Structures are given as structure tokens and as C-alpha cells.
């Protein structure tokens, strides 16, 4: 059977009301769940899983995929409107989305988030369909040494999100790394900074840290100075995103989508680093570099394309190799197995109709995401109309509920508040929060992969140079750092020059 026969055979599996309803319903559930801080896309998928057992395999799997994709997009809504990322994947969206909302451009930011998400989603799906085999074998050549160098390189994005002071950014990152060491040691299972508390042994949950660091300081700032905008209602973002703006950001969206596809096809990295990497890359190449972090629409486009670019690509290792690369795909593999299907290369032979039905469904899902996401924006946009005196306490309560739901643990609320005070301290001292967060995500990956590599080699460090992939990332890391140092020195001498000029006047 060739591709067209396969598609013809698969068409009836997808082109029925049930499949469409599953996809549309899934996306709607996902958008709502994603928009609630504390409920991540994966949690929503896990909660939906039992309902799919009774469905046709393809309907059930499409439902789960819909929830996942909707969830990744839905997270951007609160990120833009209330500075609270709904899912970890949308934390980079906060950086420019929230300043845009403050400027009364919430409608624009949300619109761009939707356009970028759908474009990236489509690119991701097409990559899955066309390049799955190739990308999957590439992903399999990533062992701990390759991961280590890739993550080391990814840490250089800290420079892109540090704002005015790189040193302060690095300090924030150091503390993010430190916080991430809390918990049980990976290799020996011993306690690190746990004080024998069973809650601390599990480490601090990422979503909890994230919400505490972004949402609570905003609340505290408002408590510090409520009078200033007591009656100021942020102008409803009547402005829509224009086609010209979309075209201006198109290159960025394209680049970010491919970053997402690349990182998504490698199991174990996830959408949040991809969004940050896309953001930092977009900032580096943009003529409006200065405007990033202050409400640049291109920043929103980059981070949203970066995280949705991952969505389709996470299925690459799953379908091509049968590898559950992350929690999301692990759940989907469960859904396959319940129906007696074994994902992997054999499935392309044995159940090709299901694979192609899935492909068709994915493409339809991008379109449905556009429609349903558009409706969701229309509904949620009115949040900006809520006066701050009502909105801010509401955000606090929302975060308390959401964070409790992450792990059903009161302890997490305490952690969120403590992180909130830390975040407030950082805000008052111009220490950027984003590097802290990136280090918190990447730190454990860096350490774990380093130590796994050392275990493999019995402590010989030449394993970190074992393949061309490691050399590539070492090279990229050094080039990036060199460029940073050069820029830093130049800025410094220019500033000194300017100072001398003013002094001599």
C-alpha cells in the first residue's frame, strides 16, 4: 500500500462525527484546564485517560491529543492576562505577554499566541508525518553525554532573559540550581537539604515554584501600591493582531517551530525549555532587541510557537520507536495498549490505517485549535476588564486552589508563598525571575545527565566528547559565551566613553 492508499483507508476512521467531537471536546477541555494555573496539560490528559477506555482506539487517542494540544495553548491565556503561567510551557510567554496586557494590548497578545500556536502546531504535525523516521533515529543517538552538552548550551539562554544585568541573571540562575538540588540524590538515593521531611524529599514541584515566582510577587506589588491603579481598568484589548504583524513575526514563528520540533523529538526535554530557547533565539536575532521583555509581540510569537512546536513532535519517538519520551506520551502509550496496539515501527505495518488516521486527526486538530482557541480568547479576554482591586485577590485564591491540586498537598501552598516572597525580594532588587526558573528546570537535567555519563564511563570525562553531537554543542556553547563576553565588553567601554563625554562637557 502506498501513502495514498493508506490515507484513503484511514479517512473513514477520522471523517465521522465521533472523531470530530472527540477532538473538539478534547481541545476545549485542554484549553480550560490549561488556563487554570496548577492544572498542566499532562494532568488534564491523565484525568481524561480513564474515559477513553470505552471508546474506539482512534477516538480515544484523538481525544487525548486534543486535550494535550488545547492545554499547551490554554496555558498562555493566564500567562498573558494575569502573569500566571497556566502550564510550565507558557512561562516564557509571561515575559512579553503580560507587559503587552498592561499596555492594553491583551487582545493582540492573545491573538498572536493563537496564530503562533496553530502555525507551530501545523509545522510540528507535518514534521511528524514527513520526518518521523529520520528524527527518531537521530533522537536515539542522544545518550547522557549528548544531553549534558545540549543542556549546557541551553543554559546560555539565561543571557537572553536576564534583562539589564547579566550578573544578576546569573546569580538568579545559581539560586535556581541550588533550589533544584533539594530532594533525594539520583545516584545514591541519599538526602540533600531535605531535613528528613518527606515533603522535601520529593523536591519542590516545578509548577509550584513557577506560580509562586511569577504570580505572587505581582500580588504583593499591588498590595504595596494599590492606590496607583485603583480605578484604572486596563483598556480592553480591542486591538486585534494584524496580518502585517503576523508576517513580521513569521520568520520567528518558523524558527521557533523548528526548535520545538527538534527538542520535542528528543525524549525528556519538554515544552518549557523549548519556549525559552525560542524566545532567546528570537531576541538575539530581532532588530527590536531592546523591546523584548517590555511587551514585544515577537517575544509572544516565539515562545508560543516554541512550545506548541513540541506538541506534534513528542509523538515522533512514540510512533517511530515506541518510546514514551515524557509523561504525556507515557499516558498515550497506555491508551494504545489498552486497545491491544503496540506503538513502534511494527505498527506502521500492522496497523497502518490507525497511524494514518492519527495523522489526519492531528492535522484537523490544528484547525480546530484555531477555531476553539479563538472562541476561548473571546471569552477570557474580559478578564482584563476586571478592576485590579478584585482581580489581584482573585489571582491569589486561584493560585491557592490550583497549587493545591498539583499534588493534593498543603505543603505546596506553603512553598508557593515562600517562593512568592523570594520572587518579591528579587523584583524589588531588579533580579530577573526567568533565569532562576530556567536554571530550576535545566539544573536537574544537567546534573543527572552528567552523573549518568560518569557512571557509564566509570568517571572518565572523555565520554563527554564521545560523538560529533557533543562536539557540536560544546562548540556552540563556547561561541555563544564568547559572543556574550564581547558584547558585554563593548557595552562597557561604550558606557565608559559616554560617561567621559558627559564629564568633559
Amino acid at each position, binding site marked *: 500500500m502506498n501513502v495514498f492508499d493508506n490515507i484513503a483507508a484511514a479517512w473513514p476512521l477520522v471523517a465521522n462525527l465521533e472523531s470530530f467531537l472527540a477532538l473538539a471536546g478534547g481541545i476545549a477541555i485542554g484549553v480550560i484546564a490549561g488556563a487554570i494555573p496548577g492544572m498542566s496539560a*499532562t*494532568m488534564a490528559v*491523565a484525568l481524561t*485517560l*480513564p474515559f477513553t*477506555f*470505552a471508546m474506539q482506539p482512534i477516538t480515544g487517542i484523538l481525544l487525548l491529543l486534543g486535550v494535550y494540544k488545547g492545554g499547551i495553548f490554554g496555558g498562555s491565556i493566564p500567562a498573558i492576562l494575569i502573569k500566571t503561567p497556566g502550564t510550565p510551557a507558557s512561562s516564557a510567554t509571561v515575559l512579553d505577554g503580560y507587559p503587552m496586557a498592561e499596555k492594553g494590548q491583551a487582545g493582540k497578545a492573545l491573538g498572536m499566541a493563537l496564530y503562533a500556536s496553530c502555525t507551530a502546531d501545523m509545522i510540528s504535525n507535518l514534521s511528524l508525518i514527513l520526518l518521523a523516521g529520520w528524527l527518531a533515529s537521530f533522537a*536515539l*543517538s*542522544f*545518550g547522557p553525554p549528548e544531553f549534558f552538552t545540549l543542556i549546557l548550551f541551553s543554559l546560555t539562554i539565561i543571557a537572553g532573559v536576564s534583562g539589564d544585568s547579566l550578573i544578576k541573571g546569573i546569580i538568579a540562575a545559581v539560586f535556581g540550581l541550588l533550589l533544584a538540588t533539594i*530532594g*533525594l*540524590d*539520583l545516584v*545514591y*538515593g*541519599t*538526602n540533600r537539604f531535605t531535613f*528528613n521531611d*518527606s*515533603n522535601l*524529599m*520529593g*523536591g519542590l*514541584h516545578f509548577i509550584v515554584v513557577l506560580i509562586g515566582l511569577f504570580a505572587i510577587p505581582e500580588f504583593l506589588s499591588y498590595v504595596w501600591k494599590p492606590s496607583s491603579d485603583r480605578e484604572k481598568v486596563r483598556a480592553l484589548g480591542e486591538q486585534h493582531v494584524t496580518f502585517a504583524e503576523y508576517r513580521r513575526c513569521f520568520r520567528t514563528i518558523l524558527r521557533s517551530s523548528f526548535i520545538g520540533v527538534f527538542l520535542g523529538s528528543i*525524549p*525528556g526535554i519538554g515544552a518549557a525549555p523549548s519556549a525559552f530557547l525560542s524566545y532567546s533565539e528570537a531576541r538575539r536575532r530581532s532588530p527590536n532587541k531592546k523591546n523584548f521583555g517590555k511587551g514585544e509581540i515577537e517575544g509572544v510569537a516565539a515562545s508560543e510557537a516554541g512550545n506548541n512546536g513540541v506538541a506534534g513532535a513528542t509523538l515522533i*519517538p512514540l510512533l517511530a*520507536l*515506541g*518510546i*514514551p*519520551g*515524557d*509523561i*504525556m*506520551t*507515557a*499516558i498515550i*502509550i*497506555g491508551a*494504545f*495498549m*489498552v*486497545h*491491544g496496539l*503496540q*506503538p*513502534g*515501527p*511494527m505498527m506502521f505495518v500492522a496497523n497502518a490505517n490507525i497511524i494514518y488516521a492519527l495523522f489526519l486527526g492531528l492535522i484537523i486538530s490544528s484547525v480546530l485549535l484555531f477555531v476553539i482557541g479563538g472562541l476561548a480568547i473571546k471569552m477570557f479576554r474580559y478578564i482584563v476588564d476586571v478592576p485590579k482591586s478584585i482581580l489581584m485577590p482573585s489571582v491569589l485564591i486561584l493560585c491557592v486552589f490550583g497549587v493545591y491540586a498539583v*499534588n*493534593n*498537598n498543603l505543603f505546596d501552598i506553603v512553598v508557593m508563598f515562600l517562593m512568592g516572597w523570594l520572587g518579591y525580594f528579587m523584583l524589588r532588587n531588579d533580579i530577573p525571575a526567568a533565569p532562576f526558573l530556567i536554571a530550576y528546570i535545566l539544573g536537574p537535567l544537567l546534573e*543527572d545527565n552528567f552523573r*549518568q555519563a560518569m*557512571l*557509564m564511563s*566509570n568517571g572518565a570525562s572523555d565520554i563527554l566528547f564521545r560523538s560529533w553531537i557533543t562536539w557540536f554543542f560544546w562548540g556552540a556553547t563556547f561561541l555563544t559565551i564568547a559572543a556574550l563576553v564581547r558584547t558585554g565588553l563593548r557595552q562597557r567601554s561604550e558606557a565608559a566613553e559616554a560617561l567621559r563625554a558627559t564629564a568633559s562637557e
Partner: protein
Amino acid sequence: MMEKLGRLRSAAVLGLATLAAGMSAFVVSDARAEYPERPITLVIAYGPGGATDISGRTLAVPLGKIVPQPVLVVNRTGAGGATGTVSVRDADADGYTMMISRVGSLTVNPAMKATLPYKIDEFDQVGVYEINPVACAVKEDSDIKSMDDLVAKIKAAPKTVSYSSSGVGSLLHIAGAMAVREFGVADPVADVIHIPLKGGGAAATAVLAGTATFICTNTSALASFVVNKQLRPLMVTTKEPVAGFDAPTAADLGKPNLHQLVGWSGIAGPKGLPAEVKEKWRGWLKAATEDEEFLKNMQARGSVIQMMTPEASDAFINNQYEVFKKLVDELGMRVEG
């Protein structure tokens, strides 16, 4: 200004008093009512999407139909199951907080970790309902064709063969060491490298990517790789062969000790559950495990559904604990810090 503040405060307090009064209308306060009179929380000490989570949520579907009150499935993740397990131990033993007990959190962890904040006898078992056979596997293109090949390779070149696990204190961790030891490797801790990864999926992937040489884990985690001819099973630890796994059983190989090496899930609660609660739960669990849909879903994932009596469950769990503990002591695998 203060006046306004005061007025507001009293307004707020008044409003909240009304709110509280309104809500107390919902109070269910019939103390003599039969258990359960409110929803029951079922804690899963592992994250969404893992083997325990899927097992627990699949079980919650028939339980939802049988139990007269809602069963709320709750993930409380962290520290290899310790965070959630401790939270159940500390809950009231009234039957409203139960958990899915699991091989990792209830036998391997207590056997391995000296500083674990709970002990195995701090829980009342309702019953084990699921057994997961364990298989050891290598990459399909490996020159290792049998357990004997594997052991020969370890003996010929110590510290070159590695196995992957889903973390310190997981079933996979102890399984790799126990399997090769049964086949004659005297000191697996020194001679075989243990590479811990984050999660079972990552552990299987590590073998596929060549990061680790072999893996011993639940057959359900390996099934798709075996079907797709990516991994080759070397043995299964059960007495009976496992469908789809073309490999000898531990019984075939004459290693009956390895029959203890299986995964399992059960229902447990804090120590001191009332007899009535235990009785009710047993009935529910029995009915749930006989649910056809449940059986079909679980068996499709390679689980053996086997409802054990409380006594049999206790005996089974304690026996496995003793076997693991002995192994840990002999091999010096105990985690002290």
C-alpha cells in the same frame, strides 16, 4: 479612612458569617450513618501516567460504580513514592484515606532505605489485586542471547555491563542486581553498573539507545519493544510463560527464588482500619476485579489480575520484603544517608 476600613471589615465579616451559615446547611452530620458517608480519597504515590497511576485509575472506574460514595483519585508524587505514602500513614485510619500500595513504595523502598520515614507495618493491607511479571531484556542486536551470556560477559569484564532503572529504590534497581546474582555474579553492586534514570520509560529507552546493557522490569513496560523486535527478552521471572515473550521462565532456568521478583499493586490504608472498613473494601475490590471491562483493560497491559485475601497479601508482601532485605544486606545496597 480608618472609618471606611472598619465599615468594610464589618461588612466582610457579616457577609462571611452568612456564607458560613449558608454552607453549614450542607452539613452531613449523622454520626451513626454507615461507612462510607462521604467521598473516599484514594492516594497514588506516583505521578500521572506511570504504571501505578494507570492501574489505580483503571481500578477507580469499576470502583466508582460499586462504592456508594465517589472515590477521588489523588496523585501525591515525590521521593519514589515516599511523600504520598507518608501522607496516608499520617491520615486518620477511618477509611476515608486509602492508597494504592505498590511494590516500590511498600517493599523495595523499606528494604533499601535506612532513613525512609515510614515502615511496612504501619499500613493495613486490604489486598493485592494485580501482579506484574518481570522480564530482563537486552537490545535486539546485542550478542547476549541468554542470562548465561549476560553473566559470562559480566564475569569476563567487570564494570563494563550496566543496567538501567527508574531510580534508587525502584523495583528495577533491585531486580537487575537480584537477577544476575541468582545466575552467579557474586557482587553485582561492584561488578555491574547501575544507571538510575527518571522514570520507567526513560529506563527502557536507555537500553534501546545503548546507554545501558540490560534492564529488568515489568513486562508491560517492555511489551511494545519486544513486539517491535527492538529488545530481546532473556527471561521472565514467573512460573508461567508470559504471552508475547519468547523467553524461558525462571522455573525453566531452575531459579525459583526469582518468582519473588514481581511487581504488584494493592489497596492499603493507615494502620488500625476498622474491621467494617476492611470488610467493605474487600468486597468492593473483589467486585471491581471481576469487572469485565477492568479485566480486559488490565490484561491488555500485561497484568495478571489476582485478588489475594488479606492474609495472603500480608504473607506475600512480607515474604517479598524479607527476600529483598536479605539481598540488600548481603550486597551492601542499603541507602544510609
